[in-house]
């Protein structure tokens, strides 16, 4: 897909070319090295360091004796896997994602298709209006919605006086609404850009044949923008498991949000105690879970013939 199209060459000259030393070595090094060094320092080293740290335990001689780190093998991971609240929070995020991601992407897809359908006037305005929430940082969005959910301040009084949107039963979905509000427009824009890239000839014929707009959207447009939908889904899965800012802010509005409400909040509260070795193990497990889930999703969609 991203292979550079090389000019056609005779086989023997291609073979000779491979043996020839690389040209422009200095330029290549200058281009690659700055990013490469920072990537190694701030991506690769931390990953390795987290794994190493997670293999150590802190031992004390007596209750008040000096602490020292000794190799503990997988001791921290045993703690991680027997930690009920942590797995509870992972389950909570999976439930959250199973509902919120389809709702958000469904909305984004529907709005993108409507914008692209030719039925809507003022497309420029709507595109901007839907996209504006993406400019609102998660912390600020959560603060704003937190006030909107609070019964004594809210302009949504008819709703907030009948349902407590900040109770233990509802707060997860109240947070889901905040995340949806922020990201629908962003995802819509990605899908909409993909729709705009489809040449109109692709469905003009179907239109002349009498296919309805709905049918064109379903049978032609959606399959063609599947790569964009897959991309947004993967990013959404990653985002869901990393949820931190919104629930952390909601702790000020609702006592139902505990300090271990999401996996990342657990990592943060462990590092505040501090128990760095255990926090490192949590980080490693969380990163692996995220990686496996998004990778598995990519692979299943590929196997089903979607790019």
């Amino acid at each position: 897909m991203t292979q550079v199209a090389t000019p056609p060459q005779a086989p023997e000259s291609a073979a000779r070319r491979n043996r020839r030393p690389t040209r422009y070595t200095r330029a290549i090094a200058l281009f690659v090295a700055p990013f490469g060094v920072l990537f190694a320092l701030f991506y690769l080293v931390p990953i390795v360091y987290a794994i190493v740290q997670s293999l150590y335990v802190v031992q004390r001689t007596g209750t008040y004796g000096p602490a020292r780190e000794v190799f503990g093998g997988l001791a921290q991971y045993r703690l991680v896997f027997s930690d009920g609240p942590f797995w509870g929070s992972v389950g909570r995020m999976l439930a959250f994602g199973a509902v919120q991601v389809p709702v958000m992407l469904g909305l984004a897809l529907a709005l993108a298709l409507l914008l692209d359908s030719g039925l809507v006037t003022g497309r420029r305005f709507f595109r901007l209006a839907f996209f504006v929430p993406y400019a609102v940082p998660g912390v600020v969005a959560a603060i704003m919605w937190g006030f909107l959910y609070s019964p004594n301040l809210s302009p949504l009084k008819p709703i907030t006086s009948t349902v407590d949107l900040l109770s233990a039963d509802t707060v997860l979905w109240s947070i889901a609404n905040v995340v949806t509000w922020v990201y629908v427009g962003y995802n819509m824009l990605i899908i909409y850009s993909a729709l705009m890239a489809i040449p109109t000839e692709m469905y003009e014929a179907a239109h002349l044949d009498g296919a309805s707009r709905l049918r064109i959207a379903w049978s032609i447009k959606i399959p063609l923008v599947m790569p964009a939908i897959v991309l947004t889904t993967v990013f959404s899965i990653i985002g869901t498991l990393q949820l931190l800012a919104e629930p952390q802010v909601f702790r000020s509005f609702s006592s139902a949000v505990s300090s271990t409400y999401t996996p990342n909040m657990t990592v943060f509260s462990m590092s505040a105690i501090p128990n760095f070795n255990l926090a490192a193990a949590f980080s490693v497990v969380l990163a692996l879970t995220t990686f496996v889930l998004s990778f598995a999703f990519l692979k299943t969609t590929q196997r089903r013939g979607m790019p």
Partner: protein
Amino acid sequence: MTTTLPTTPAASVRRHGHSTVPRSAAMLIMGVSTVYFLLPLWWLFVGATKSREQFTDTQPLWFADLHLFDNVRELVTYRDGVFLRWILNSVAYTGGAALLGTLLAAMCGYALAKYRFPGREVIFNVVLSGVLVPATALALPLFLIFSKMHATNTFWAVFLPSLVNPFGVYLARVYATAGVPDGLLEAARIDGSGEIRTFFTISAKLMSPALVTIFLFHFVAVWNNFLLPLIMLSDERLFPVTLGLYSWNTQVNQVPELRGLVIVGSLISIAPLAVAFLLLQRFWRTGISTGAVK
């Protein structure tokens, strides 16, 4: 795919003529969505213009006496102007990291697209799997490393890790492959232009839509980053604005006058990003499909 039946022009005209119902339905959905997306911001804007008493006593969605300027003055003078400092910090962290980070990602992606050298595929694949590593998983180990060097609670502890943007490298490579013709580079070489000069004078210009996209993605990611500053910083004079507002919001129950400041501060903190989006919107739309379609 569909059976081709000859349709008369009249039939197709009729179909268009009957589309008032779907048209109104579509506009209705658009209208309801607009209310959903803009109403909270409207509420925030109206709330920021009110005095403390009127904020709770008056209709939340309409103006009372205009108090915006008093509120802003209170905000920027509160505790020796700490809020202004947060805004400046955010601009420094975010603007600096996004500008430099975009340049670094562009150079790396460009080299991966336009030169053949040993290890090219390995580097690209490692960087690409970096996209799938959640940035928050790195925050804790970064904190541990920086604390070994006694460098936590510094500007650099947040700034340096924010420079790295693997997705930017991916986008830059995709775009350089498609948008920078090899023939042009060859021509520049024949004209005696060095590789570095060619990149800055020719290739970077050709890649500019992608560069704007990378810059905006990066800007948003750093502006919204929460865990890294939360873990790294304890001195509030180093806080970015999001962390500052968060810390005020946690104190609202004890210090009620902070609520008004949080509302006005939230409104002001949104402004820089909104302006950046509006200014760069045109580029950003053309560039965004690059990453999505491929």
